[in-house]
């Protein structure tokens, strides 16, 4: 559409409102038939506002306000009651809240260690996922159809099967009399089974395994759009394949790398299921800590405090960092 280059007018148009919404703005000169009520209503509530309101209000109630509630509860104390926390406001709106729970978090090394450990585990898992996923994404991007679609299908298939069951699969693999140990023993490489379950190692495997498609797909999307002639030009100019990769391919694929890494790193920090099933009692991850506080200790206020800190210190900065990146069309 239009000549090849987008002039300033075209760019302005793209930024602005699409015609459909502007058309909905202009009050109809001849109001459509229908009774007085609908005509009056259409003057008060513009259709456009209604369409915006529906998802907005829903998200406000069921996504934003819950965070406020979490903050509130984090200021109360645990109690043997239903619900199991003391009220925040008294009969005359006296404020009973305090920062006791936060002080508690700071004082007990468990929590700080858990935050740090979560970051560490998430970071290492992301790097491992990148190392394993990049060659796979590159290979698929350079394959021709129809093999390429088949390979993509094979990558996507695990994603659509149950996350829980895929984690479960590793229990069978890693346990003391699991597949790996039994195979190694029967071949004769080891005589005693290796402890693999209930360790940090198992958690790494679990995270990399379940999040691998999230790393591969953005990488693939980026690599497949890459102009092959750039690589050919580099080699034509005398650069070795290694050098071409590090100087041309890798920098150009950086948006894909970042996108994939974000999709692995951020959720991995707050993971619960993987450390619960594959990790040990000394595998410290903040998601598990929160769960334990809530379900095992029935300490809703502390759990809320853990969540608030997690949100403010970890999640929000990452989201803001992500939004500060120049957007790449996906």
């Amino acid at each position: 559409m239009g000549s090849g280059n987008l002039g300033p007018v075209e760019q302005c148009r793209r930024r602005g409102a699409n015609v459909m919404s502007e058309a909905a703005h202009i009050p109809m000169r001849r109001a459509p038939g229908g009774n007085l009520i609908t005509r009056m209503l259409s003057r008060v509530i513009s259709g456009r506002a209604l369409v915006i309101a529906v998802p907005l209000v829903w998200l406000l109630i069921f996504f934003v306000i819950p965070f406020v509630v979490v903050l509130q509860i984090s200021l109360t104390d645990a109690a043997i009651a239903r619900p199991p926390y003391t009220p925040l406001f008294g009969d005359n709106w006296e404020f009973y809240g305090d920062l006791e729970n936060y002080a508690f978090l700071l004082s007990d090394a468990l929590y700080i260690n858990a935050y740090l450990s979560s970051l560490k585990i998430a970071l290492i898992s992301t790097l491992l996922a990148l190392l394993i996923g990049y060659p796979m994404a590159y290979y698929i991007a350079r394959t021709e159809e129809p093999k390429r679609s088949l390979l993509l299908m094979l990558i996507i298939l695990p994603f659509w099967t149950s996350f829980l069951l895929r984690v479960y699969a590793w229990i069978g693999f890693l346990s003391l009399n699991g597949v790996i140990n039994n195979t190694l023993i029967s071949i004769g490489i080891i005589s005693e089974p290796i402890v693999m379950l209930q360790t940090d190692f198992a958690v790494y495997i679990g995270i990399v395994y379940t999040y691998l498609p999230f790393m591969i797909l953005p990488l693939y999307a980026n690599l497949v759009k890459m102009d092959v002639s750039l690589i050919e030009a580099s080699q034509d100019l005398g650069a070795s394949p290694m050098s071409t990769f590090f100087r041309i391919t890798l920098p150009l694929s950086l948006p894909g790398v970042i996108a994939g890494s974000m999709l692995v790193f951020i959720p991995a920090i707050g993971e619960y299921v993987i450390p619960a099933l594959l990790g040990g009692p000394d595998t410290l991850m903040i998601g598990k800590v929160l769960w334990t506080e809530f379900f095992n200790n029935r300490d809703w206020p502390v759990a809320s405090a853990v969540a608030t800190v997690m949100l403010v210190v970890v999640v929000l900065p990452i989201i803001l960092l992500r939004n500060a990146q120049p957007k790449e069309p996906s």
Partner: protein
Amino acid sequence: MNRRGFFLPTAALLGFVFLYAPIMSLIIFSFNENKLVTVWSRFSTKWYGELFSDDQIMGAAWISLQIAFTSAIIATVLGTLAGLVLTRFGRFRLRTPLMGMTTAPLVMPEVITGLSLLLLFVGMEAFLGWPAGRGMTTIIIAHSTFCMAYVAVVVQSRLGDMDDSLEEAALDLGARPVRVFFDITLPVIAPALISGWLLSFTLSLDDLVIASFVSGPGSSTLPMVIFSKVKLGVSPDINALASLIILIVGVGIAIAFWQLRRGMKK
């Protein structure tokens, strides 16, 4: 591109082996007579029989399916509206907050989402009397909320690719904006709606953490039941369940890709 001859295909192959070995072992051992899932004795389908006669699992599966179906519909409607607003409505006052609210669930750790929603429901019950206790309704609300974010992404992408002069043409020919949406926009983005629905369905069916927080007595979902079983160790009827799910999904994806290839050939 045979310059990379050895390294790349090998690395890719190892990657695929890594991805599929555990799944394969799941399937293989679901046919193992021996309860010790990792020692092969002989072929048997008894675990499938056990699976289907397990009322707890079957009941939970039914509940999960109902929840997934309903949540997917709600999420698709909400996500489509959000996607439409963010793509076609240009600048309006609350656009940035809406954009933030629509993308945040994608990266929010599930424990936080689950906890916050539970606390909301508890608080709402205290103030408003609704929801009366947690159960399927609260799970549906929770799932719809985080699934709509995924639908919104898919819809935004499809709307962005779509030639918007199609909508202008319809307006030019005399159709009002609402008419244009149902006559033109919706049919053209229909594939995105379908994949959004499927995505929501899958995510809902698979969710453990959020459901654990917001469910109530009598509304245990399938993942919750599976989780309680596997916490105690390997369980072969779960292997059977896993194999069935993999089979269904595999067939579904194969059909989808086949349809896609047929569509592309036209």
